[in-house]
């Protein structure tokens, strides 16, 4: 019987719809339905709910008078952002070098073990110098900052501050054709662009959501933080020391973030005037009550989850990348390794934009995940004959200097890292969310074009004026 129903039902339904339409539908009916429901709920609440003190309730959102005030709204926002960066950078330093030391010691034992059993050199190379080193690099550089960054963000979120950021920033995003909630998907991007792409679902209107997706790459994700922080502290900070150095590093990183934000606005604006033209879609934003976060629970849960995902990713992505890089760096064709050949191929182009062939190689091989860009680069440099043993972050500067790095190389690598295409996971998510090859491709090509244009300009300017 079900079958018969099934065949006739849709047409019956159409008849019913027509009948209903004849009765008159639309806004006025909808209005009465909702207002009658509200009459009922108000009636229920009048009888069921008692307010002891309206003032107490009002106080719960008084904080907005400060957090979204004309005078304090933006300074507080910048201060909080700066504070998060500072805590992350300052707090991650010590555990990072401790981890690096620890892995260095383990590597020593592993090497000794390989020697003891007379393992062939290539096996030691692939497993220890490739796999182990690549993985441990990613872990020691990534784990501490992530275990600090995400919990602080989670605390802010649980406290209820994040929607206020969207509230404060909305006017600016509106000017650029976007949605205030884009501020939040950007904030998520600081953690992980791939996750941020999914989080753009909070933006209900398709046009603004697409803007948020296409520009999310311009906020540096956790895979790019270490690159930015390391380069900022190694090269941009010349002669200051201690606490001041941390603050200068944090400021440079903040500066990079600002460049990213300005790019986001500019690209959003241009897109909303060209490919994604349209009237800004309607907008509502709830500002939920401030709630005291469960501080320790949030911190522990969030750092545990993040540490776990960093570790997982280190194994899944960094380990194979380490192996591949080692192999490329140690198979010799005509006297040079494949890696060197490839780097040589990219060298002229790299030079044009103030980088070098190895850096370009690292960005290409680092497509699956941004956090492996630096490790690949270091391996590339090390395999190319530089006789530096990597046993701590301080050595990195020496390696770079030996490769002829200047402040321009560091600056442009930071800029390129900030602006270039999103990682593989992010691109995959963009494809899943937009279901469009065209937009996915654009989401990689737009940033790439901007990254090349910007680094080309700085390189040419710096050389023209003889700064390097």
């Amino acid at each position, binding site marked *: 019987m079900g079958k018969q129903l099934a065949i006739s039902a849709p047409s019956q339904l159409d008849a019913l719809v027509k009948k209903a339409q004849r009765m008159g539908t639309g806004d006025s009916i909808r209005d009465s339905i*909702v207002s009658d429901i509200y009459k009922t709920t108000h009636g229920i609440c009048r009888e069921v709910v008692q307010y002891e003190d309206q003032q107490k309730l009002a106080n719960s959102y008084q904080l*907005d008078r400060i957090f979204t005030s004309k005078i304090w709204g933006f300074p507080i926002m910048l201060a909080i952002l700066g504070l998060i960066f500072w805590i992350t950078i300052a707090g991650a330093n010590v555990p990072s070098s401790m981890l690096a030391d620890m892995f260095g010691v383990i590597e020593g034992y592993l090497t000794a073990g390989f020697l003891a059993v007379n393992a062939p050199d290539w096996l030691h190379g692939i497993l220890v110098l490739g796999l182990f080193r690549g993985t441990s690099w990613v872990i020691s550089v990534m784990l501490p900052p992530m275990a600090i960054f995400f919990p602080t963000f989670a605390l802010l979120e649980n406290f209820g501050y994040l929607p206020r950021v969207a509230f404060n920033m909305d006017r600016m995003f509106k000017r650029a054709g976007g949605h205030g909630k884009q501020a939040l998907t950007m904030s998520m991007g600081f953690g992980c662009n791939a996750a941020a792409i999914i989080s753009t679902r909070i933006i209900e209107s398709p046009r603004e959501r697409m803007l948020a997706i296409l520009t999310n790459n311009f906020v540096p994700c956790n895979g790019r933080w270490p690159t930015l922080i390391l380069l900022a502290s190694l090269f941009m900070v010349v002669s200051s020391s201690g606490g001041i150095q941390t603050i200068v590093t944090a400021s440079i990183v903040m500066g990079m973030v600002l460049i990213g934000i300005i790019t986001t606005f500019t690209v959003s604006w241009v897109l909303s005037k060209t490919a994604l033209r349209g009237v800004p879609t*309607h*907008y509502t934003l*709830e500002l939920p009550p401030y709630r005291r976060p469960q501080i320790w629970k949030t911190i522990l849960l969030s750092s545990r989850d993040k540490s776990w995902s960093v570790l997982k990713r280190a194994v899944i992505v960094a380990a194979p990348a380490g192996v591949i890089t080692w192999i490329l760096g140690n198979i010799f064709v005509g006297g040079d390794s494949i890696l060197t050949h490839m780097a040589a191929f990219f060298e002229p182009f790299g030079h044009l934009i103030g980088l070098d062939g190895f850096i370009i190689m690292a960005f290409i091989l680092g497509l699956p995940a941004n956090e492996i860009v630096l490790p690949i680069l270091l391996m590339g440099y090390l395999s190319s004959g530089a006789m530096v043993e990597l046993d701590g972050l301080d050595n990195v500067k020496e390696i770079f200097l030996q490769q002829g790095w200047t402040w321009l190389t560091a600056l442009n690598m930071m800029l390129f890292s900030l602006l270039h295409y999103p990682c593989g996971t992010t691109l995959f998510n963009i494809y899943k969310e937009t279901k469009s090859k065209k937009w996915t491709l654009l989401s990689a090509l737009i940033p790439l074009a901007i990254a090349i244009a910007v680094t080309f300009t700085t390189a040419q300017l710096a050389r023209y004026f003889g700064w390097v």
Partner: protein
Amino acid sequence: MTFEPIPLSEAGTGNKMRLTRIEVTGVMRRRLLDLGFVPGNEIEVLQKSPLGDPIAFRVNNTTIALRSEESSLIWGKRLGG
């Protein structure tokens, strides 16, 4: 003393308003209704964003921010003095 209906975008911060008319249409109208922007309901103008727009409103014990595009199409009468 009675007040003439004015758009919410022009009602000053701190004022309580009784809604009279919603001129927004389509999905946004539905959304506004669901949030409690229903004619007859009472709302309070809480706070402007630092750049002047959007504006946060207190409705049904929740805080909702609207852009001027919408709040200029929602009308209400000021309550009290």
